[in-house]
């Protein structure tokens, strides 16, 4: 089976390639290719899943892998490969299944977009990269796919690139995650230089296998930290970026500028979970020190984002912050040692969060591109199917007991946190997060689906940000119809292509939970390879039951208070000010402004980088160029001195000598005038003088 694993990413890649080269307006072909390829991938993934079930041995999880050389360097070669183990199989099935549904949904959602084919091309490319990431048996291959999902995320967030906000959000997402990616990159280099390989499993020689791990654990770097701690934390840096953990979470809410199916697929179900997946993949490297950091970052993120979600009014942004918060839960789970709980929550979350996003898309679609929950209300009458599925998703996310998957997976996380020996902090934060999650989801559902429809008139009071989505191009076709009726048009239910995926996901959001209950922890035994059978008694063990009761209480409190504050708020056509806002206006403002993290970054990091750029430019213009100028001036000065010497000393002196010679020559020449009588006179005078001299001074000699 592992030999065919490459088909899983290859099929969507092929579809993307064909869509890229075919002519633009072939919409049906593009959608058909993308959905078909994804469906086929899903079948292959299911086959792989079945294969991994069969190979399920008693001793540890079954694992098959296939490595090959990519290129040769020096006397070694850089190898890539893919691996089939329970983690891969689960992720592959989840991504292809949820992906297929979202693809089908997109065909309805994007039906009137002029760049429909490009959309499916990008989606397929994304699926290929994401699936490549999932099956990779090499950190390098994983990194490559990691960057490629980042690229497709960039392309799809900026899909409506003519909107400046979308273009800016795309850039922000790419650069913020790249900060994390560079940590990942350095961690990868370090791992490579120490272990000599980036393959995870390679017959005992891989970097996740015993010999390499032991080598890493005994080496220490600065401050006595084990090398594996440092490498693990650097890799975690990558996960922080990709999975929107504090402090690199700022890009994920802005990423909602992308079309809603993109938010569902990339920014809820799959790509953002890649960070959690990465941590799960390299779990053997992570030391207790590293895990402690991960647990705290996750716990803080879970509460931090949930607090922000309480005060948001954009339906997609609430879900985005909820995603950040839930990813925090998964990280926390891994950090406190609940490996299985983290992965389980990843899978259940993918289903119910994709469901919620697609439900939100259906709502937005039904309300003519309205995203502000204050201008919705009463939608359960107009969109019954959406309402029902959304309610299931909401209860799964909130963790309503027993019947919803979110309850079981979140409960496992809380259980793992409660028995973490290091600290009880994450457990308490997790409970607070559970309360907040139930609260903000109740608020959202109450404002959207209960009360009266408030979409006819402008909002009671405008939000801090201008209306998003007011300039959609996809309105172009449908706009004519909608615009004429604007102010009268009532919300409407979405087409079947959008509703059916919701129903299927809703079923998943309920049923999946039963794979991982404490009574029958199939998920646990599959992922770890330890067999555990159905045993109802485990449900009532004191620790398990206590945690369940506590989390149920938190959820009940959240839903109850949410309903009390917002359940009746939408009855009037004029929405009253937010109950929390009247209660605590300043706190609410801070939450609504997302703790002003963006502003803080703007004032510090971003400004510092911009100044750094200006500084480099200044260095260039004045220092380096200045040195060159000075050198040039020096050279010129030297030349001037040279010339001065030439002119003043050499030339003038030479001229003077010349002139003197010339003068004396002239004087001598004037004597030789060619007149014989003059010569004779001179000779006569000279002769006379000689005679006189001799006669007079003969005694001298």
């Amino acid at each position, binding site marked *: 089976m592992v030999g065919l694993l490459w088909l899983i990413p290859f099929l969507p890649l092929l579809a993307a390639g064909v869509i890229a080269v075919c002519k633009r307006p072939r919409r049906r072909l593009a959608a058909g290719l993308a959905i078909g390829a994804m469906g086929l991938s899903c079948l292959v993934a299911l086959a792989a899943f079945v294969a991994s079930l069969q190979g399920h041995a008693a001793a540890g999880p079954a694992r098959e892998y296939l490595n090959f050389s990519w290129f*040769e360097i020096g006397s*070694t070669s850089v190898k890539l490969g893919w691996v089939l183990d329970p983690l891969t199989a689960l992720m592959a099935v989840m991504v292809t299944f949820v992906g297929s549904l979202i693809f089908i949904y997109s065909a309805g959602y994007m039906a009137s977009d002029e760049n429909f084919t490009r959309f499916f091309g990008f989606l397929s490319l994304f699926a290929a990269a994401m699936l490549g990431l999932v099956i990779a048996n090499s950190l390098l291959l994983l990194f490559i796919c990691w960057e490629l999902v980042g690229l497709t995320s960039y392309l799809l967030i900026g899909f409506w690139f003519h909107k*400046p906000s979308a273009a800016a959000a795309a*850039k922000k997402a790419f*650069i913020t995650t790249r900060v994390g990616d560079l940590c990942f990159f350095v961690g990868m280099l370090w791992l490579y230089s120490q272990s000599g390989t980036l393959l995870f499993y390679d017959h005992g020689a891989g970097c996740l296998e015993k010999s390499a791990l032991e080598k890493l654990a005994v080496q220490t770097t600065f401050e006595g930290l084990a090398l594996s701690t440092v490498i693990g934390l650097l890799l975690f840096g990558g996960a922080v970026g990709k999975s929107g953990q504090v402090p690199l979470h700022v890009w994920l809410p802005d990423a909602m500028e992308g079309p809603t199916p993109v938010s569902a697929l990339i920014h809820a179900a799959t790509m953002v979970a890649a960070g959690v997946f990465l941590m799960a993949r390299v779990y053997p490297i992570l030391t207790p020190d590293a895990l402690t950091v991960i647990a705290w970052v996750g716990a803080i993120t879970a509460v931090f984002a949930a607090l922000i979600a309480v005060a948001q009014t954009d339906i997609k942004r609430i879900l985005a912050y909820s995603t950040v918060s839930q990813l925090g839960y998964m990280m926390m789970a891994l950090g406190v040692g609940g490996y299985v709980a983290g992965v389980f929550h990843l899978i259940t979350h993918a289903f119910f969060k994709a469901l919620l996003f697609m439900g939100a898309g259906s709502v937005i679609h039904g309300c003519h591109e309205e995203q502000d929950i204050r201008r919705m209300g009463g939608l359960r009458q107009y969109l019954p199917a959406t309402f029902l599925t959304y309610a299931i998703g909401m209860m799964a996310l909130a963790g309503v007991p027993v019947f919803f998957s979110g309850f079981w997976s979140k409960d496992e996380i809380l259980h793992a946190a409660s028995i973490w020996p290091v600290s009880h902090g994450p457990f308490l934060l997790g409970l607070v997060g559970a309360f907040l999650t139930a609260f903000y989801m109740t608020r959202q559902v109450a404002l959207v689906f209960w009360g009266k429809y408030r979409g006819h008139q402008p909002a009671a009071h405008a939000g801090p940000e201008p209306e998003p989505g007011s300039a959609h191009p996809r309105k172009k076709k449908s706009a004519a119809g909608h615009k004429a009726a604007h102010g009268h048009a009532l919300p409407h239910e979405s087409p079947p292509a959008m509703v059916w995926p919701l129903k299927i996901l809703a079923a998943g959001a309920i049923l999946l939970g039963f794979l991982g209950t404490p009574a029958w922890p199939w998920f646990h035994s599959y992922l770890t390879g330890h067999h555990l059978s159905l045993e109802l008694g485990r449900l009532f063990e004191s620790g398990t039951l206590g945690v369940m009761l506590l989390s149920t209480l938190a959820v009940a409190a959240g839903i109850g208070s949410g309903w009390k504050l917002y359940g009746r708020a939408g009855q009037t056509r004029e929405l009253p000010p937010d109950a929390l806002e009247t209660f605590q206006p300043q706190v609410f403002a801070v939450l609504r402004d997302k703790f002003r993290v963006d502003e803080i970054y703007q004032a510090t990091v971003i400004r510092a980088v911009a100044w750094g750029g200006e500084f480099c430019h200044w260095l260039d213009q004045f220092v380096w160029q200045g040195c060159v100028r000075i050198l040039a001036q020096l050279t010129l000065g030297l030349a001037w001195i040279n010339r001065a010497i030439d002119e003043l000393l050499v030339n003038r002196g030479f001229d003077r000598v010349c002139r003197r010679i010339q003068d004396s020559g002239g004087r001598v020449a004037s004597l030789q005038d060619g007149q014989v009588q003059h010569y004779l006179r001179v000779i006569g005078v000279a002769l006379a003088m000689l005679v006189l001299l001799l006669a007079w001074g003969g005694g001298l000699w």
Partner: protein
Amino acid sequence: MSMALTLLTLLPLLGALAVASLPAGRKELARRLGLGFSLAAMGLAMLLWNQFDAAASFNFVEQYSWIPSWNLKYHVGVDGLGMLMVVLTALVIPFSLVSSWHIEDQPKVYFALVLGLEAGLFGVFTALNFFHWFIFWELSLIPAYFLIKLWGGTLRTPAAMQFFIYTMVGSVAMLLAFQALYLATGTFDFATLARLAKSGQLSQSMAALAQNHGWKNGLGQWMPTLIFGGVFLGLAVKVPLIPFHTWLPAAYAEAPAGTSMILTGVLSKMGVYGFLRLLLPVFPHEMQALLPWLLGLAVLTIVASAGAAMAQKDLKRVVAYSSINHLGYCLLGIFAAAQATDARPLWADEKAAALNGVILQMFNHGISASALFCFVGLIERRAGGRRGLEDFGGLRQIAPVFAGLMGITVFSSLGLPGLNGFIGEFLIFKGAFSLVSWAAVLSVAGLLLTAIFLLTLLQKVFNGPLNERWSGFPDLSLGERVMLAPVIAIIFIVGIYPQCILGAINSSVMQMVSNLAR
């Protein structure tokens, strides 16, 4: 094939003469003839690439005695490095000529000069003896000067002047240094010099030279460093390394786009080539002694150029600074490979990784950066000479293919995996991290800054609402697509299957590494 490399060098030279001797009115003929000659050279280069035997150390060697009394030989040959640079030159020149097709002002002279430049480049990349290597080195400078000076933008005269004088100063320093080497050793042959350097004889000879000339002891020990400094200066200006780079932004920005393509695509590689062929084998001890400084310069080049690129407002200048940044990675790899290590095979592999990365990066940068300049040139021409970062906006709406292909090139330039730029950078960093971790870690900042300014470029030019002024901005024509298709294909092929190039250079690199002093 016994005269293959000489023939390769003579072919564009003949082409230059042929094109230059055409009557002035036959513009189209001149262009076609020029392109024909460059394509013929490309064909020949491809043939050589095909016949190239990676296992042998030097291929297609020709060696004739030239001036026996000076022990001068005409000695040419290519190893993996030289071969790849020959291929790069042969690819970039026709690319540049096609993109310069629109030049109406004396196209005959322009095309002839470019062919002359190509001959000089082939000469540089094949010569194995300093004497004629230097002749070709200088020969390539003169056409480049005239190309900037005669066809450049409004500030072309000072730019060309600065380019010429700057490079000349470097060349003179290098020439003096090599004359000193010749006095010390009596040879100009690269291989002989490297051998002497490895055995330690070279240092002795240089010290002896100082003594013979009556240099006092204190001064005499600086002789090798001085000679090294001369060669270093000549090469550092050409690459360029910060702070020897100030000629570059002006020259690249003022030169016509076709010339900028050659300047960044190939001419800048002469410097890096020199580092690999001369500095690394001949001056290993000097490099090791100065290593922290050299690495500091490489890091400075990487970070400061990326930082400066962020502050530019002119597309050509952005690309120019990005070019400095990318060559900075090459120098990081080279300096890392100069690091003194013990003889364990582990280090040899790390050095091999770094140097393979450097050579691959040279090729990749040559392709991607020349393509970027080509795109900027296309924008500039469509916009009537404007190329400010803020002048555009939303062009992707009306020119989607243009935006898509330029986007691919930009992402190749910022090192996206799957495209060609990544592998080179990855290998450089892999080697450098093991050998000199601090420099590698500091240089990572450059990768982030590169992403910032390149994505800003894409955002400002192609995204956002359409700037109505350019609503008539045409998308790529069929001809332009055909011109760019091979480049885009190379970007993908090298990115996905780097072995196609690494296979040809790896054994040369291993040879280089084994010749390095420990």
